[in-house]
């Protein structure tokens, strides 16, 4: 089980935990690119934070589309999500962030 998640993975896990079950819907909900969402889903499923299953075929056919894959959060996933959210919450806002004079970025123009 990973000790911490990337922000992208955390966002995806958060979306699933909020009840967004399908891959494309997660993309829409998180506003992350598919190229980020799907690898994150794959990794988190491998790590046991997520579980996936096919939805009921009859229900899908009633809506005139093939059965989709449903992602759901596991108990491990809930634990990791909470721990990660705690960490994020621990990051207090910096009051005078506007006053910070950042050093110029290197490497990129």
């Amino acid at each position, binding site marked *: 089980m990973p000790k911490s998640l990337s922000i992208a993975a955390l966002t995806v896990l958060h979306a699933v935990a909020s009840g967004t079950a399908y891959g494309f819907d997660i993309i829409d909900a998180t506003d992350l690119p*598919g190229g*980020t969402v799907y690898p994150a889903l794959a990794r988190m499923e491998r790590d046991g934070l997520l579980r996936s299953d096919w939805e009921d075929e009859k229900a899908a056919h009633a809506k005139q589309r093939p059965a*989709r*894959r449903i992602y759901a959060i596991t108990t491990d996933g809930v634990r990791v999500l909470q721990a990660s959210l705690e960490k994020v919450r621990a990051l207090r806002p910096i009051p005078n962030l506007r006053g910070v004079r950042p050093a110029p970025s290197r490497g990129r123009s």
Partner: protein
Amino acid sequence: MTPRLTRAIVWCAARLAPAVSRDRFIAEWRSELAAAWTAQPMTWSRRWALCRTACASFAHARALRPEDGLVAHVQPRRGWSSGLRQDVAFASRLIGRQPGFAAIAIATIALGVGANTAIFSLVNRSLLTPLPYADPDRLVAVWETVPALGIPENTPAPNTLDLWRSRAHTIASFGEYTVGSVNLTGAGDPTRLTTLRVGASLLDVLGVTPVLGRNLTADEARYDGARVVLLTHAAWIRYFAGDPHIVGRTITLNGAGATVIGVLPREMPMTIQTADVWVPLALPPDVNRESRMLFVVGRLAPGATATAAQRELDAKMHAPGPDRRDDGIGVYVESLDEQLRGGVRPDLWMVFGVSAAVLLIACLNVAAMLLVRGLGRRREFTVRTALGASRARLVRLLTIEGAVLAGAGGVLGLGLGVVVLRIIGRLMPASIASTVSWQLDARVLAFAIAATVLTTIVSGIVPAFVGAGSLVVSTRGGGSDERRATRLMRNGLLVGELALAVVLLAGAALLVQSFSAFVHQPLGLNPDGIVTAQVPRADRDDARRTAFLVDLLERASAMPGVTHAGLINGVPIRFTGGGSGFQIADSGNPMRTLNAHHRIIGGDYFEAMGIPLVAGRAFSPHESGRVAIVSEAFAKSAWGSRAAAPGRRIQWGADGQWIDVVGVVGDVRLSPTAPLESHVYLPFTAVEYSVFAPGDLVLRTTGDPGAVARELRGVVHAMDPAQPVSSIITMHDLLSQAFGKRRFTLQLMSAFAALALLLASIGLYGVASYAVNRRLREIGIRLALGATARQIRVRILGQGAVWTVVGVGLGLTAGAALLRWARAEVPGLESPGIWPIVAAAFVLIAAAIVACDIPARRAMRVDPLITLKAE
């Protein structure tokens, strides 16, 4: 259209996913896409977004691990076999998409494999399959030798055989036979049959059991034994329609009854002599047992070798003892296999080598074509490499394409091989057909498969290794030119092919030259208009037989269209034996002996054959007394000149009687390959020689030989209805039969050389045409910058010419080596000259010019605008 595009993207991406997760991956993405397509009203921006999302499947696929699959504990199959079916299917589709290329490649391989399969099945049956006898490697032929007279293989006398039998321990048993002929009557037209007169032990020595009936007994083999006969399978079918109740029947041979006791197996074509029937040897008690007349076959004792038997007999024949031989006569033991098949072996191996060279040319051709085509598929390989295909994977793909082509060619080639064998069977002269046979068996099949696999390796794997590597590198470098190594490889293949083709063409030309030299050698006689026939007279009474033959000569000369008629005991070309020693009188040395062929003749033999009389006189129609006519070579070696011969005397045999030489005639070649030889002719009308009964009639005709043949049958039938007339044939046909073996080899060689030329031209054309296509842009620019169409053509031709010259040069070098070898090895090929290889080089250069000119002309017609726009 967009749903389909997204599905295609996902399908491509799935190739990157581990095999175990692939199905799930595709299903997941397709269902998501389908849901997306149905859920919302489609705008173009939405479509675009979906396509981009679909591209995310690549990232997804790469993130998947094999253990993510539904059956995570199963290790995915990796390595050579995974996706094999897919690759084969892909290769087949690809080949189907370029039918022209595929047809040429498959036809090329089919020709190569077909020719090789056909020739191999001949080699297999004729050289590799053992003789159809029990333990054939223990069988030997045993000959007497007379080193002093330069006679390597002479038939031993009965006394010599007895001596061998009593002394040899390395040879467990001996079987003897001699050849003869009988007249068969009462079974259709009267026919002359050739006989093998065999000792009782011959069949046991060979280890052959008759398919019907039984073997000879020792009693039957004696002189006063019962008259019995064994039929060969062919004679049984031909004269007795394969009658299953033939055993026990009595047939009429030479006017007397003989009981059929058995039928020999079909598989005896390689017996020393081809005969129709086997009869007991039955030597009369008063026969001269020092007369050399027996052919001897021996069976080695277990563990003994032919060399050991040779050593033993050499030692024992000269051992001191009461019957010690001190007459300079030796023994020669040779394996029966070598004796029977040694004659065809070099020719067959040569043809086999040539056909293998043709296969190699075919392989090089297909290899060059595949390489060239691979270069045209650089874009495809770029995508494959970008998607993660390894070099091994590319090599595998190219190899499988080669294998699919070779497999198709191999199957077609096997079928073609059967057709080729049929054709060869028709061309094969009878003299070879008896020792060479063919059959498609497991070994031939295995050979065809091996040839196909070899083709796959040479034509598929080699260019795949060389090509795939350079292709990947070239795409990475981003350049559009093929690598130097690939170009060298392609041109190297072409050069090799050209060089081989030159050698084959030169070889064929060499054979043509030596053959025509043989055909045009003077024979010492004039073959135009000669008709010969065998009229063997089975009359035991000498005087009656002579009278019949004299009458026959008179009637034959009176036939319309016949100018001269003669008789002889053995027409040149057909009969090459009958040599003996003659003692020369008045030569200074009383014991001086000369070897010459003795011939008993009658009628106008010399006029009929066109042999010139150079001194003295010819025989009169009723010549009597001990007189002889000698040939020029004999006269010169006996008395120094032909003019000195008439009036001199010679002695023949042991009777001590002198024979007067009355005339000298020209020398005659007994076979097209033999030198001009000494002859001594004796008249059959003289009572002293009438016992020899010449049976070959020679007619000089002016009209249609066919009409003369029909007329002759009528004339003989009118004289004696029971008298057979056989083997009516013109001298030209007899000669072409004698040339048969050589002509057959020549035809095969020429066919293979033509095939090599064709294949090399196809290869040149393919590669030149590729080179033009590859350089269309360059040609377009050149034309745009002011080059003339003519300059372009010259340029293309020039580049083809460079490689042609290199290839032909290599071929000429190899051809010159071949020529040197031929001078040393091939008898009768005094000076083959340089023209065969020069002619071969010219033919190939002409073919190369044509092959390069077709694409060059296409290059001339390039429209620079279209070409440049296409880029």
